[in-house]
């Protein structure tokens, strides 16, 4: 992995004394989609804001494509587009004017064709002459994405981009993100909808209380920390688990109508064949059988709990 962003020993203590980041180290690979997950107040937004130049760090160094953000902020910021978490838009401006403004602010010459393409990709073209205050919350979110893309950034930060937006916009947005990824843009996103991170991200970092707990390829993380469960729908209600089934550590669910078996996918043997055989011997019959794999969300929750 060639890193496009390197964060070394980054700390941030706010004036209130709150330690938002504790010696954080992180590298983001060129062209990847990286998801930063963490509960509220974990330090995600602080981290993003420091990289983008909105908050001053207390200590530590950050390079963006080799440019130190303190020594050479202009070169670093030229590359970055940011969609912040808070909906902050110029209420009285039109969609078109605000997009053109963003492009100029980031030092790019006018390019009406490119701005049109950005607005079209976000289904904003029809609204280009509307004042932003007349738009719905979801539309405003689109405007903020358009503004971030207006200067053709090589690195895009999306801080909770799907908070409060409908399904259709999420689909649109992820299509845009995939398109950007294919054109070589690096994308760093935070989200509360972990299924989105699960679907989109290649690597995942989990941050809690200002510390990065884990950074891993998503597939690897799911394999390492994931568990599988098999649920059996029973024909007849079971009041207690027979002693012969004790080694399987089964759980009774749904008022005795379901038996749940948890097993390790990495194990040499999953034990399923033996379990089914033992069930037959004990005369327990079942109507249906299903298996589920623990989601990134469950992994995330267990990681954060473990630290707490």
């Amino acid at each position, binding site marked *: 992995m060639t890193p496009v962003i390197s964060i070394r020993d980054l700390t941030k203590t*706010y*004036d209130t004394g709150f330690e938002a980041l504790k010696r954080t180290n992180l590298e983001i690979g060129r062209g990847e989609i990286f998801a930063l997950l963490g509960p509220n107040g974990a330090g995600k937004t602080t981290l993003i804001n420091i990289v*983008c*130049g*909105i*908050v*001053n760090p207390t200590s530590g160094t950050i390079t963006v494509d080799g440019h130190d953000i303190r020594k050479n*902020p*202009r*070169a670093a*910021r*030229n590359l*970055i587009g*940011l969609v*912040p978490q*808070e909906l*902050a*838009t*110029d*209420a*009285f*401006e039109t969609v078109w*004017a605000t997009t*053109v*403004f*963003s*492009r*100029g*602010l*980031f*030092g*790019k*010459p006018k390019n009406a064709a490119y701005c049109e393409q950005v607005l079209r990709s976000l289904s904003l073209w029809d609204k280009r002459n509307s004042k932003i205050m007349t738009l719905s919350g979801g539309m405003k979110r689109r405007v903020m994405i358009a*503004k971030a893309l207006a200067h053709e950034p090589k690195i895009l930060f999306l801080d909770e981009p799907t908070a409060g937006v409908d399904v259709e916009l999420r689909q649109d947005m992820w299509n845009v993100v995939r398109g950007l990824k294919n054109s070589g843009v690096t994308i760093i996103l935070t989200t509360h909808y972990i299924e989105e991170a699960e679907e989109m991200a290649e690597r995942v970092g989990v941050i809690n209380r200002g510390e990065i707990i884990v950074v891993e390829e998503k597939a690897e993380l799911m394999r390492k920390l994931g568990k599988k469960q098999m649920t059996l729908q029973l024909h007849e209600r079971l009041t207690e688990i027979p002693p012969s089934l004790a080694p399987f550590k089964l759980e009774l669910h749904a008022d005795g109508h379901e038996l749940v078996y948890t097993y390790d996918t990495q194990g040499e043997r999953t034990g399923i064949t033996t379990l089914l055989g033992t069930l037959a011997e004990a005369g327990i019959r079942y109507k249906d059988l299903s298996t589920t794999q623990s989601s990134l969300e469950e992994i995330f929750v267990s990681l954060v709990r473990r630290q707490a």
Partner: protein
Amino acid sequence: MNWYAVHAIYHFEMARMFRTVVQSIVAPVLSTSLYFVVFGSAIGSRIQEVDGTSYGAFIVPGLIMLSLLTESIGNASFGIYFPRFTGTIYEVLSAPVSAAEVILGYVGAAATKSVILGFIILATASLFVPIRIAHPFVMLAFLVLTAATFSLFGFIIGLWADSFEKLQVVPLLVITPLTFLGGSFYSINMLPPVWQTITLFNPIVYLVSGFRWSFYELADVHVGISLALTLAFMIVCLGATWWMLTTGWRLKK
């Protein structure tokens, strides 16, 4: 230099003025006309002349200064405070722009508005009284310099304020009294000697005096001192703004 950014900010701020044309232009013109009705006609008819100039004409430079100061501070402070208040400032903070570019964009636009306004008031005043401008280039220099200086000062207030109330405090409690007591409507020669000395500590006196000299060659203090002090205040404001923007004071937590 990121000239595209300077242009973007400047254009954005100027568009804001044209959107709020009533508040930006019509209101100051109306208040100037009211000053003329009250001071020029009602009271001025009883004051014959000040140093050989009719009272109505005498107060024109002071009136322009009054509006110039108020509007420069108001425009520039609001221009930077509002994005801080709504949160849209994030974009400027994350953009590849230097302090110089931010100042040129925001302060340049605020100063432009004030200069335009100054000319509008001058035109309005010329409808009421005959106006003579003895030194047009000095007049223009004062106009531009004052607009730029007090726009910078307003910008500092906009960066410092953390509530709408604080935004209003300095213009209302400091600038307006100083302007009224700074010889806008009278020559300080009319004051008792003690007050003449005290008045010289009021920086607005130098602005109004210098500006009035460019019209009628009437001055309470030498025009060179007026220009030098205005320039000095501008440099102080520029230094303060520079420091605020490069350290991110009140902007980057």
